Structures are given as structure tokens and as C-alpha cells.
């Protein structure tokens, strides 16, 4: 071996050997005679920390008494992986998923019906906010239990309101008032570029709730049989989107939105105070604390078309037990532990979310990291709350809605054309799904 080879061997070989010998080891050791319960969850990083702590506490207390050891596995794309594992016959015992997949997975037979287990383990549905409990109910059966819930609300920059001559204590309540505020808060430079945006309904500045706009115009999109976008309310919403866009200037708006990178950081124009109003969830408080602690902002229910009916989007992460899971009773023992009010509220608090309970405990609000949490929490009790449409084809429909929104905002299609095209496409999706379901029923009947 020449000198160069020897040096290379030392430079690469020694650290590799050291890594193998002294590198990190998996520290979790399962005590003897404990049954291992696989818990797959989508949370990682700071969202996972409180849940990991709760799992550790369970393993030390109830788990020790009942001979259960919960293994927390942070899994990306947890729904897809859970589904594939279920199809392969080796699902996790408990999984944490998004609420909008419940109807789809329930229809596919991927989820266990929990009614009997819930009754058997004494989990009391009455304690939960009714809307949040119902999120896990599909066709009168309980398929999922609420985990950390949230509402989305209008966040507005109080300083920018003051500078624009608006009263920060009198935020907009109707869509018309929102438009008026947005107009006053939008500032262009000499080149016609937006330097400060009032409000933008662009998907890049939202999250997975890009489809909600018609709901703020009193449009209920899914009636259990038909998706109803092409209605007077739905069309009014789409015309509003187009009007807002044309007023802002399509080119200027696209240019501004292009500067928004990851919304979880300083690139978010609301956090960097380049945008005055945004429709977001309670986690914004975490971003503000991390990236702009001095941001003076307020939170109110997002304006609706009328003051009388203030619509509110409510959603939650949920726990499910996949069909084929082998430790049902143990899974329910764990879920019952997590769903105790003090435990669940500890989790919700640390994740900056609202309480799933009708009556949050006083300590929940004390020291909550989100100073506006009471606003978010009250919104979840609204009689005008709406959630994801409980349709098994929602993922496909959501994609169509995203395309529709983008094409309106980019001025590619008129609101009427977009509504008509999307309605037609969604009708086809639903009809095709029903057709296939009918063929499946016939085939299963023949077996």
C-alpha cells in the first residue's frame, strides 16, 4: 500500500470504525414480559416531544401494571404506510392520522369500528366537543377518536392596521369589510410590485384547507350524496376570489406569492410583516415565538359573507386502530390513557392547539403558548362549524379544488367556467366511485 492509500485508509477507516464501535445506539429497551404495542404517528420534532413523554409515562405507570409497552414510531406519510401495512397483514396497533382520510379508509375497510371498544373502555363521548367527536364518526359508526384539534382563523397584524388608519380592535367581520381592509393594507412600490399585501387567498400561503372559500359564503359542499360547488353561494365565493385577484393585479400577486417559501419560517410574509392578514391555525404562535417574537397580531374568526352566520373551519388529528391490528384491548387501554383530559390537554397545549373537550380545564388556558387560544377554542363550539367533506373521494376532490383555485387566481379560467368544469369533474369522480362500489357489492354478493 502506498502512502496515499494509507492516509485514505486512516482518514476514512478510523472514523468509520469509531462510529461503529462508539456511535449512537437505540436506547429503548423493552422490559421482559411486556407486550409491545406499535403506535405510528405522523408527528416528528417538537410536535412529537410531548407525545413521546406521554408514551414514556404510560409505559412507566399503566403500561407497567397491564404489561404493555408502547413503541412510538414517527412515520412520514403515515396514512399510505399504514394502508400498505394493513394490506400486507401487519398493521400497527394504533395510528395517528388526519381526519379527512377517515371516510376513505373506512370505506376501504382499513379501519376498525370502535363503538363497542369505546363503550367497553368507558370513553365518554359527551365530554368532547360534539363537532370534534363527530369527525371520527362515519355513517353512524365510530372509526376514529379525536386527538389534537384546531380551528383556522383570521390572523391580522395590529401594527399594520394602525399604520393604514384602521382600528386594530375592530377587525373585519364580513367579506366586504375584509376586502375594504385588504385594499387599504396593500402597498405597491414604484415598479408596481407589492411590498405589503393586505390579504391573499393563495394556496402557497395556506395549508391543506385551500378548498374552504365557498364555505365562508354559506355553501355546504357535501350533502352526503352530491358535491355542491356550482350553487349561487359557491359561485359567489369564486367570483369573490377572482375579483380580489384582479383588484390586486394577477402579475403583482403571483410575483409576491413567489417570494413566499416555507410558511413555517421567516419566509412566511405574515411572520415577516409583509402581509397584514392570513387565514391560519393556532400553530402560527409557535412560528411567531421562534421568528418574530415582537409581532403584534390579533386573531378573530374569519369573516363570512354575513355577520349573522360566522362559519368556522374545524379539524383534528385522530387516532385509529387499523383492521387486522392484533392487540385491540391493549390499544384501547393506551388510547383511554391518552384521552384523559389532563393528558390530552397537555399534548394539545404543547402542540399549540385547542382542547377537544367541551369544558377545557382552567389550567389549559393558563400559560398556553398561544395567547389567542380562547378565540380558537370558542370557534370549535360554533353552530356554524364545518369540517372536511366526509366523502371517500375527498383526496381526489381536494386536488380538483386546488386546481380550480389556482386557475382562478392565475386568471386562466373565469369563476363560472372553473365552477362548471370542477363540478363536472367531481360529479364524474363521485359517479365512478359509486359505480365501482355497486359492482363491488354485486361481486361480493355473488361470492
Amino acid at each position: 500500500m502506498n502512502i496515499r492509500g494509507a492516509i485514505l485508509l486512516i482518514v476514512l477507516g478510523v472514523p468509520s470504525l469509531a462510529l461503529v464501535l462508539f456511535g449512537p445506539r437505540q436506547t429503548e429497551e423493552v422490559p421482559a414480559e411486556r407486550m409491545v404495542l406499535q403506535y405510528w404517528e405522523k408527528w416528528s420534532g417538537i410536535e412529537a416531544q410531548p407525545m413521546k413523554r406521554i408514551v414514556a409515562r404510560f409505559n412507566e405507570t399503566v403500561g407497567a401494571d397491564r404489561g404493555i409497552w408502547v413503541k412510538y414510531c414517527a412515520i412520514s406519510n403515515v396514512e399510505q404506510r399504514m394502508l400498505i401495512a394493513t394490506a400486507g397483514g401487519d398493521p400497527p396497533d394504533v395510528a395517528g392520522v388526519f381526519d379527512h382520510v377517515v371516510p376513505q379508509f373506512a370505506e376501504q375497510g382499513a379501519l376498525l369500528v370502535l363503538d363497542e371498544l369505546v363503550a367497553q373502555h368507558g370513553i365518554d363521548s359527551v365530554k368532547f366537543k360534539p363537532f370534534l367527536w363527530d369527525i371520527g364518526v362515519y355513517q353512524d359508526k365510530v372509526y376514529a377518536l379525536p386527538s389534537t384539534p384546531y380551528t383556522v382563523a383570521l390572523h391580522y397584524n395590529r401594527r399594520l392596521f394602525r399604520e393604514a388608519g384602521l382600528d386594530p380592535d375592530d377587525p373585519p367581520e364580513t367579506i366586504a369589510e375584509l376586502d375594504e381592509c385588504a385594499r387599504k393594507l396593500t402597498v405597491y412600490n414604484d415598479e408596481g410590485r407589492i411590498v405589503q399585501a393586505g390579504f391573499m387567498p393563495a394556496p402557497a400561503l395556506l395549508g391543506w384547507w385551500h378548498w374552504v372559500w365557498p364555505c365562508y359564503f354559506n355553501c355546504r359542499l357535501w350533502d352526503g350524496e352530491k358535491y355542491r360547488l356550482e350553487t349561487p353561494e359557491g359561485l359567489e365565493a369564486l367570483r369573490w376570489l377572482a375579483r380580489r385577484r384582479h383588484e390586486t393585479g394577477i402579475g403583482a400577486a403571483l410575483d409576491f406569492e413567489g417570494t413566499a417559501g416555507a410558511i413555517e419560517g421567516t419566509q412566511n410574509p405574515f411572520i415577516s410583516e409583509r402581509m397584514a392578514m392570513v387565514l391560519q391555525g393556532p400553530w402560527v404562535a409557535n412560528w411567531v415565538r421562534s421568528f418574530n417574537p415582537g409581532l403584534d397580531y390579533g386573531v378573530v374568526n374569519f369573516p363570512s359573507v354575513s355577520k349573522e352566520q360566522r362559519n368556522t373551519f374545524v379539524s383534528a388529528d385522530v387516532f385509529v386502530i387499523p383492521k387486522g391490528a392484533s392487540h385491540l384491548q391493549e390499544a384501547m387501554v393506551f388510547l383511554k390513557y391518552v384521552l384523559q383530559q389532563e393528558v390530552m390537554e397537555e399534548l394539545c397545549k404543547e402542540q399549540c392547539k385547542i382542547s377537544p373537550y367541551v369544558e377545557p380545564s382552567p389550567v389549559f388556558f393558563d400559560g398556553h403558548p398561544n395567547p389567542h387560544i380562547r378565540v380558537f377554542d370558542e370557534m370549535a363550539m360554533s353552530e356554524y362549524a364545518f369540517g372536511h367533506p366526509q366523502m371517500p373521494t375527498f383526496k381526489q376532490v381536494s386536488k380538483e379544488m386546488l386546481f380550480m383555485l389556482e386557475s382562478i387566481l392565475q386568471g386562466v379560467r373565469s369563476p363560472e367556467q372553473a365552477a362548471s368544469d370542477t363540478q363536472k369533474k367531481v360529479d364524474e369522480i363521485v359517479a365512478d366511485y359509486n359505480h365501482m362500489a355497486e359492482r363491488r357489492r354485486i361481486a361480493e354478493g355473488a361470492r
Partner: protein
Amino acid sequence: MACRRNSNLIRGLLWTSPWWLGFLLFLAGPMCISFYISLCDYPLLQPPVYVGGHNYKTLMADPVFHKVLVNTLVYAVFAIPLGTMMAILLATLLNRRVVGQALFRTCIFVPTVIPIVATGVVWLWMLNPRYGLINHALSMIGIDGPSWLASPGWAMTSLVLVGMWGVGSPVVIYLAGLQDIPTALYEAAKLDGASRVRQFWHVTLPGISPVILFNVIMAIIATWQIFALPYVMMKESSGPDRSTYFYTMYLFDNAFRFLKMGYASAMAWIQLLIILALTGVVFLLSRRTVHYRGA
């Protein structure tokens, strides 16, 4: 005699079994199953239900399918010739004996070893309409750069241009092809008074024509399967007017988001047929244009 032949056959099959067993189990078998599934409604967790040609019929009437088909075709039409020309040009330049030749070769090849996700994220910022390097460079010569990924006219162009970033792999193959051309041919062409351009046209291109054929076929397969780059750069969006929604992305959505495995399998079979047909056309065209030495 027959006994010995049989024994040889068995021994041959035994020694080649790792390949043909793998082929049967991991390619031929799944392909047959996928074809059967394309004739079924199969949402993964329930048994497949035979629906005949329903998936194929629905695909023919699906406007999104038409859109992704056209998008992928447009991408291929621009990306393949552009990529081929660029790769040949770069390979020709890199084939010249100049100072720092190894460094230039490394620079061209390095982008191909960078993960596509990293490439996508970097280009996302490079193409940022306000803060991106591309528009900044354009502004220095007085051009107001467009919203690359947000405008229907530019989104596809941007992806084609970003795709050129990975041109290093074919460059290496072209380089090997160029080095395989006998210098005697160039000397003969020079003696005949051929200029550099004529040498390139009449010696270099015919000399590397089998390599071009290989690279074009690989490019056809790759462009019809384009997925990762637009998936990273466009995220959930299908691009303005669905202009950056490609065939494999729609296939992926159907399979793993909408759980329509039958529909996705039908799409996969159509994709295979398209690639086979295009490859066949290229082979037919290559009969006149590709020159094999010693043939």
C-alpha cells in the same frame, strides 16, 4: 447424447437461475398481476373486482389523463433534442485536450450525483421571481424576468431547462463514444480538406450514432417517467393550468392517494405501450442513420 444435452440444459438453467428466477418473481410476475389489476377495481385493501375494460374506457374520456399525456409529450419533445444536443456539444468540448480538462469533466458530471430533491429545492430558489439568481442576472441586462413556475407559459420551459442540469450522465457516455472514433478517420477527412464542421458532421456524428441511439432511447424512457423534479418543485400543485402535471405524477396520485390501483395499473400499461412504440419508431428510423463499425 440426448441425456447429456438434458443434463447441460439443467445445469445451464441452474446456473442462470438467479437471473431468471428474479425475472419471473420480480418482473414478469408483477407485470402479469398488474395487467390483471388494470382490468379490475382494486382499492388495495379489498379484493380486486373484475371490471373488464372499464378503466381503459374511463381513461380515454378523462380530461386530466389527456392533459398529462400532452404535458409529458411536450416535455419529451423539447427535453430530448435539447438534452441530446447539449450533451453532444459538451462532450465534444470536454474531449479536447485543454488545461483543466479533468476539472471541467468533473464539473459537468457532479450535478448528476446530487439528489434530485436537493436539485429541486435549489432551482426553486434560483427561479424565484424576486430573489432568484436567474431573474437577478436578467435584470442586470435590463430584462424583467417572468414568474417562472407560476405562469402557464413559463412553468414547462423552466422544468425543461432545469432538466438540462442532469445532462452529465449522457455526456460521459458520449465522451466514451467520441474517444472510440479512430483518429485515422479524422486524418483522412483532413487530407480530403474537410473543415472542423464537416469533420464533426461526417465523422464524429456517424461515429457516435450508436451512442446517440442508446442515449435517445434512455431519454425517451426517462422523460416519459419524469416525476421527482416536478413533484419536489411544484409540491401539491399541478402547476398553472395543470401545465406541470406529468403522466407518472397522475399515476402516482391514482395509486397511492386516490387508492385506484386498477386505474393506475391501466395507466402504467398505456405508458409501457407508448414507450415501446416510441422506441420502435426510433429503432426504425435508426436503420438509415446509425452506423455500426464493422457492420
